[in-house]
């Protein structure tokens, strides 16, 4: 029996998931093979018109769990199906922890969905082999209505092929408990490490745990969470210099980066965070219950915090800098993409086009999220408070750092940063492993001429 299991594993696991096809699949467009450019000039072959009365059924995979994005997705589908009675969109909620592994495996066997939640930035480019460029299906004028459409595009240029429709803008941000802050005598939000230290001390002196960190709000594994903090930790340098992390001219082992991480680790060492930092599966629930004064999440958590805490919750930006913070992570972090093996591409594309419709963007706003289409606006007060940092207070918009570093480096960081933040690995060793992962990449994956 074990030999059989060995045989199965030998085929499925050890052999890294062989393709369903017996031979390597040639590039669909020889002229673009190896260039990284999609075959956007290839004419599409519609299988059914969205206006036809013939019943069409497609599948959409999402990994939102209980985030506000999930009800928004179901609302999109309901609204679209009402407009197109012949179309049925089967929404499948996949586990967030291994969502992309599932999507990749399904793409190889071409058994996956037509539409799928996809993260933007280099996450998109990493998966573009099974994503369909939308340029032939949706007018560029419509695509460019979505803010940050470039982050879901090949080489971050929409004209090279758009893969993802980012239907909402996201921030990484902190939430704080106003009553607990008042109880500790805190009257203003911190904007530097030094001010944060004072806030932490006051909270602790009042018997209040300052931060709670963990995976409670989403189904993601702990590995993604350090990047919320790292995005703010790296605001010590201008956003234009983040490319240096990509091309290696600013090594991950740079002492200034390590010093930033060390300051974060000191938060835990000083007892300002929960002990099981980043591995607490009930962290968000503990924050909602008032057991900690601050937590880090993003716009997807706004509706949940408001529902549980009402007006007692406020937003803040992690002040992980020595000079007053002037940056915010505001980014189209995800959206929907169409797979290149979809049998009803025109219908799927029509659904994606619908996301630019005011009715769809109202759904986004109603869920407390930030609509991404130009001219639309958020209706939630916390969402608007977050938008105001860049829109009216002069803060610089930063991308999510995990979306603009190579997937291989991101994956290593997801493992070692958790250990470093938890204090079980030195920050030096963690950063060294990220640097090793970067330097192990072929030189053309560390280009200084742009992200690839």
């Amino acid at each position: 029996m074990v030999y059989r299991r060995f045989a199965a594993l030998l085929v499925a696991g050890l052999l890294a998931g062989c393709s369903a096809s017996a031979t390597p699949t040639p590039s669909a467009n020889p002229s673009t093979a190896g260039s990284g450019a999609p075959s956007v000039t290839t004419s599409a072959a519609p299988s059914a018109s969205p206006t036809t009365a013939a019943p069409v059924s497609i599948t959409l995979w999402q990994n939102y769990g209980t985030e506000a994005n999930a009800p928004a997705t179901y609302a999109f589908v309901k609204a679209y199906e009402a407009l197109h009675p012949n179309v049925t969109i089967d929404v499948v909620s996949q586990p967030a922890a291994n969502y992309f592994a599932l999507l990749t495996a399904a793409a190889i066997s071409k058994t996956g969905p037509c539409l799928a939640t996809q993260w933007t930035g280099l996450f998109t480019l990493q998966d573009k082999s099974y994503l369909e460029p939308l340029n032939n299906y949706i007018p560029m004028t419509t695509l460019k209505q979505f803010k940050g459409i470039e982050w879901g595009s090949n080489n971050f240029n929409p004209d090279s092929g758009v893969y993802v429709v980012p239907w909402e803008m996201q921030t990484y941000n902190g939430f704080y408990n106003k009553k607990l802050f008042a109880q500790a005598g805190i009257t203003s939000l911190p904007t530097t490490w030094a001010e944060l230290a004072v806030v932490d001390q006051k909270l602790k002196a009042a018997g209040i745990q300052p931060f709670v960190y963990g995976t409670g709000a989403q189904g993601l594994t702990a590995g993604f969470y350090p990047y919320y903090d790292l995005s703010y930790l790296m605001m010590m340098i201008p956003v234009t210099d983040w490319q240096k992390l990509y091309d290696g001219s600013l090594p991950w082992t740079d002492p200034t980066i390590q010093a930033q991480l060390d300051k974060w680790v000191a938060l835990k060492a000083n007892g300002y965070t929960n002990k099981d930092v980043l591995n607490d599966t009930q962290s968000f629930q503990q924050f909602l219950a008032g057991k900690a004064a601050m937590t880090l999440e993003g716009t997807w958590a706004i509706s949940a915090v408001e529902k549980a805490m009402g007006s007692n919750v406020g937003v803040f930006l992690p002040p992980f800098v020595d000079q007053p913070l002037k940056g915010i992570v505001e980014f189209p972090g995800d959206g929907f993409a169409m797979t290149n093996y979809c049998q009803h591409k025109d219908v799927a594309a029509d659904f994606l086009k619908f996301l630019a419709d005011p009715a769809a963007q109202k759904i986004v706003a109603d869920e407390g999220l930030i609509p991404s289409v130009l001219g639309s606006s958020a209706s939630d007060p916390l969402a608007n408070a977050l938008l105001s940092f860049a829109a009216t207070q002069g803060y610089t918009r930063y991308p999510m750092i995990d979306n603009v570093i190579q997937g291989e480096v991101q994956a290593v960081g997801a493992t070692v940063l958790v250990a470093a933040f938890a204090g079980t690995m030195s920050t030096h060793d963690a950063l060294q492993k990220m640097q090793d992962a970067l330097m192990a990449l072929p030189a053309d994956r560390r280009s200084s001429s742009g992200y690839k």
Partner: protein
Amino acid sequence: MILLELGLLGLPILQTFYYSFTDWNGQTSSWIGLDNYARLFNDSTFWQVLGNNALLLASIPIAIVIPLAVAFLLNEHVTGWRFFRSAYFLPTAISWVVIGIVGIRFFAAEGILNGVLRTVGLGGVQTDLLSSEVGAMVAVIITFIWSVFGTNTIIFITGMATLDREVYEAAHVDGAGAWATLVHVTLPMLRRFIQFAFILTLITAFTALFSLIFVMTSGGPGFGTTTLEFFVYEKAFATGVFGLAAAIGVVLFVIVFAISITQLRLFRSRAD
């Protein structure tokens, strides 16, 4: 039957060897020669992962000796041997996922192990094994040894049941004690069963612990419990570099093959 084996096993193996020389993203591939292997051998994480597999390999003698000793006692029909035979076999019938969850609950900072230590007044030695790279690997190895304990015990009990009783009687007549009987009679005659258990345990350790590690530690902290098998998954499905993952798969295949052949030859030469 041979065609079926070739189609289901041989072809994927050959494909994997081929893909290990390509830049393969799961959809398209291009020939890059030995680049994947060069990249792999220059990756410090790969060597750490290989070290983790070496630790697993080093634990296999323990996973053999303990069941062997228990099987010997059961074969001697110690009190309650029927109950223990069933109890020891129980982990074999439990899925790796459940074993992983049990492992977490047992080794967690607020888990069963530390609870027991506190209860017996040894709170000072309690430890959070899963929080450090070395500790987590120790926890995984202990869980692994426990999980294969039942299978190996049954293999050895079965082996002992097949041994010729007249040889034992002759040993007793010659004045051999329990220890001498074990060393000079039982173990030599059990050689093929030990060999079988070793290879089975080796294969399990190197190619069947994915679920356990995925549930228990996800390969962490850091890369502390990432084995070659888990590394294949991470490279293929976390970062989409299937060609590199195929190269790791080939390395894993070669290692298991080499150890198995070496072990077989060692036993064969001793038998000769």
